[in-house]
């Protein structure tokens, strides 16, 4: 059986993180979300993965060039019209029953096995979820799908669609019919199949996680980091204290006097310390430098970052290529964030920084502030509101 993975979308709600990469490439525990999907799929007897790419496709292709043990082929969706349209792009590569997944949700292998082994011609994975307004809510009788309602205004049911289906080849007829009428979403296709009295079986997924907003990355990372085995390579100098599950990549040096409490993942080619403290559940990418006397707690630091001495980061995200001066401080606390006209209250949040910023010394950032990509912030600044990409704070 083949698997189609939809990975063409941008993930606008995750800007500025998605300005240079598609949503599926956001790293969780130092691994892109898409790689979790690949890993789960390849161990279920899938013989080929067809990835539908579009937005920033090179980032995906470049990253997965070394991916082992399964054939990967790419098809391109030029305009991101919708999920059914995306799937339609893969039609030529499919000749039998297949599964389709979205590349931006973490899913476990077991659930996919259950889906593949399900006897029904059409099957869907569903999941209980408390915030339904962003998803397709499903109504079922026994295990048979009765209706999908996209993004309901009120809380309606209990389960949502994970967007993961097993479908027969014949589904392309339905897709073609609907896309020719300008309807491009897969849930509309499924709804129309239900209306034609076909049975669609539902299966409840074990582990399924979605990242909708930038701060979701912190909580998803917190969960996934526990699945990571501890292993240490590189150079660990005398006088380093390591407790709990800590993974350290090759060519990384941990200098004397560091105190690291797992779960923590540190990539390869990093330099940490001397005398830096790293607390749960922190992930540090490749080739990053954490200078002396830093404290980092429950945060994600991605590749090629440089964090100078005496900095404090907690519940924060520092994406690729950031250069941060001495005494940087992210204040952690409550913040109310306006998202698409809705106010969302976060209890414990630090700062979120887009790629390739240069931040001077002694900069303080208030809770929940998002700094865009390629910003330059001068020394001794206090940042109390979001900064759009490519700005200069003088």
């Amino acid at each position, binding site marked *: 059986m083949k698997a189609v993975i939809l990975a063409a979308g941008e993930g606008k709600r995750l800007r500025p993180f998605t300005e240079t990469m598609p949503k599926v490439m956001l790293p969780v525990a130092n691994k892109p979300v898409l790689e979790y999907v690949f890993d789960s799929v390849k161990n279920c007897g899938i013989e080929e993965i067809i990835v539908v790419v579009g937005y920033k496709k090179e980032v995906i292709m470049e990253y997965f*060039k070394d991916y082992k043990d399964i054939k990967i082929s790419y098809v391109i969706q030029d305009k991101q019209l919708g999920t059914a349209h995306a799937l339609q792009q893969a039609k030529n590569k499919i000749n039998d029953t297949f599964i389709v997944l979205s590349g931006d949700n973490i899913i476990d292998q077991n659930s996919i096995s259950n889906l593949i082994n399900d006897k029904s011609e059409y099957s869907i994975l569903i999941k209980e979820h408390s915030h339904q307004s962003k998803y397709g809510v499903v109504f079922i009788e026994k295990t048979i799908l009765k209706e999908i309602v996209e993004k309901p205004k009120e809380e309606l049911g209990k389960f949502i669609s994970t967007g993961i289906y097993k479908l027969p080849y014949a589904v392309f007829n339905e897709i073609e019919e609907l896309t020719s009428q300008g309807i491009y979403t897969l849930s509309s296709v499924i709804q129309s199949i239900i209306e034609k009295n076909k049975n669609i079986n539902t299966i409840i997924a074990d582990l399924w996680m979605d990242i909708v907003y930038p701060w979701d990355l912190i909580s998803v990372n917190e969960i996934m980091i526990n699945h990571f085995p501890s292993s240490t390579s590189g150079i660990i100098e005398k006088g380093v204290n390591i407790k709990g599950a800590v993974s350290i990549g090759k060519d990384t040096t941990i200098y004397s006097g560091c105190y690291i409490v797992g779960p923590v993942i540190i990539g390869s080619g990093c330099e940490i310390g001397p005398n830096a403290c790293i607390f749960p559940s922190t992930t540090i990418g490749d080739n990053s430098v954490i200078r002396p006397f830093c404290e980092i707690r429950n945060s994600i630091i991605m590749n090629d970052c440089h964090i100078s001495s005496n900095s404090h980061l907690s519940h924060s995200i520092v994406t690729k290529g950031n250069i941060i001066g001495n005494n940087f401080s992210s204040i952690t606390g409550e913040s109310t964030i306006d998202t698409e006209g809705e106010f969302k209250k976060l209890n414990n949040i630090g700062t979120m920084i887009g790629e390739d910023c240069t931040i001077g010394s002694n900069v303080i950032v208030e809770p929940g502030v998002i700094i865009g990509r390629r910003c330059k912030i001068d020394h001794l600044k206090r940042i109390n509101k979001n900064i759009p990409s490519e700005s200069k704070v003088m």
Partner: protein
Amino acid sequence: MCGIIGYNGFREAKNVLIDCLKRLDYRGYDSAGIGIIDDKLQVFKEVGEITHLEKEIPTIRGDIGIGHTRWATHGAVTKENAHPQISPNKKFAVIHNGIIENFKKIKEDLEKKGHTFTSQTDTEVIAHLIEDHYNGSLEEAVFETIKNIQGAYAIVVMCEDEPEKLIGARRESPLIVGVGDNENFIASDIPALLKYTNRVIYLDEGELCVVTKNSINIYDKNKKEIEKKKDIITWDYKDAEKSGFPHFMLKEIFDQPNTINQALRGRISEIDQTINFSEKIEKLLSNDIESINIVACGTSYYSGLVGKYVIEQTCRIPVIVELASEYRFFGTRNKSSLVIAITQSGETSDTLAALREANKSGCKTLAITNVIGSTATRITNGYILTQSGPEIGVAATKTFTSQIIVLLLAALKIASIKKTLSSNDIYYYILRLKELSRQIRLILDESNKIIKISEKIKDSNSIFFIGRGINFPLSLEGALKLKEISYIHAEGFAAGELKHGPFALLTKKTPVVAIVTKDSTYNKLLANIGEIKARGPQVIAIADENDSEIEKHADYVVRYPSNSTLLSCIPITVILQLLAYHVADLRNCPIDKPRNLAKSVTVE
């Protein structure tokens, strides 16, 4: 420059050979052929792409065979001249990479004895000689034959009467044995085999191997059997696939943020402010070096020229950069000078010859190469790997920037040993080096701007590149990249040299790419641009992001992020690569396989 593959195992030889040939075709690709023993020896050859050959071969069983992609050196591109070449009795088949220097003489002698030849190749004489020497043992016949021939060769031979074995032999041209389970391979290059095995044995000069399904015996030139170690290659065969990019070259350009980090990996320590190499290399670099000779060919030569500026500025010792093909005959040899050879493949025959000359005259030698286990790593006192993974595109991209990085690191190491740079200066460079990956990323992000400029110049007949100082070799490299893949005539000049001749070629329709850095020559370069503009051509400036002046002087500007002058050469190179790529792409050129060119030049 031809690609060679031999297979002996349990799979259908035809499929394996065709598959491997496809992975080898960057070595040469004007014609191809395979020979398979299935009771009888059968040979199939075609002119053109491998896929063409694939279509012409009927279903054939047989699990032993040889295959070849040709890049013509002797004889035109015809079906007859393609390999394998077979002997008159049609029992022996030979594939060959290299040049037999005395083949005319051998051919005449054989013709006197009554032999008739069907091709113009030097290879055919090998098949004839083997048949003449054959006395029941194929390896004996090959031993005798290689005594007769002079020049460079890597050959694989098989015989219908001994259908269980392949014989391989080499001198100067590369040949490796791939070790599988119940199957073995002989090939000219690693990427051909990676799909099947990553265990390889490198044959040395004059050695001969006998390869059956489950045994490999290697003999030195005195027919004495020897033990050799297997190297495990860490490359993955998917590295040698395009993974969705339209061309290998683009994939390799986009790989550079990563390969730059690979080249730096484990070699710089920001906290300790040190550059670290293995003890052996550090000893070589501290060896009271008074001067350095860099020898290389093609793009590697240009990275050597960049290295010259870097080493001279940081270490204050003179550096002479010479083309390997010249150095080997005419170079000055000074025992207190360190000879650094730069070769991506480690098999470039001119560079190897230059190294052998240097060794002979008692110089210490250091190789900078991308291939572990290659000849260059074995005939030098030490080697530094660029660690860039396999490069398939004929136009070198990522290995060029990695070579510069390695030269820079070596320069910084020498400077710290010689104390020509302070620890603080070294620290400054380490911080700047760490920014490079991010800076390349920023340029790749702006690739669209470069496409727009490419559209403006794609129809030109001729394009000039100019720069001063370290940017002079970059303008040579920019011109080389452009001409080799887009077929537009391009030349690089030192900006100050334009008015001493090349100006005569400048017309309104000759766009000029000017590399402008904010250094002591900045104003001079603006003046040069002024002189050019006065004659009407479009000027495309590659300039620092903080340069606010340049827009007044140039028609188009591509920006690169500020860095130390010595290091900005890396982002500038990436811009030049993208420019060449997009111009060639707009002109629909076969970017990964430019006409008449091959990746590793293993003939002289």
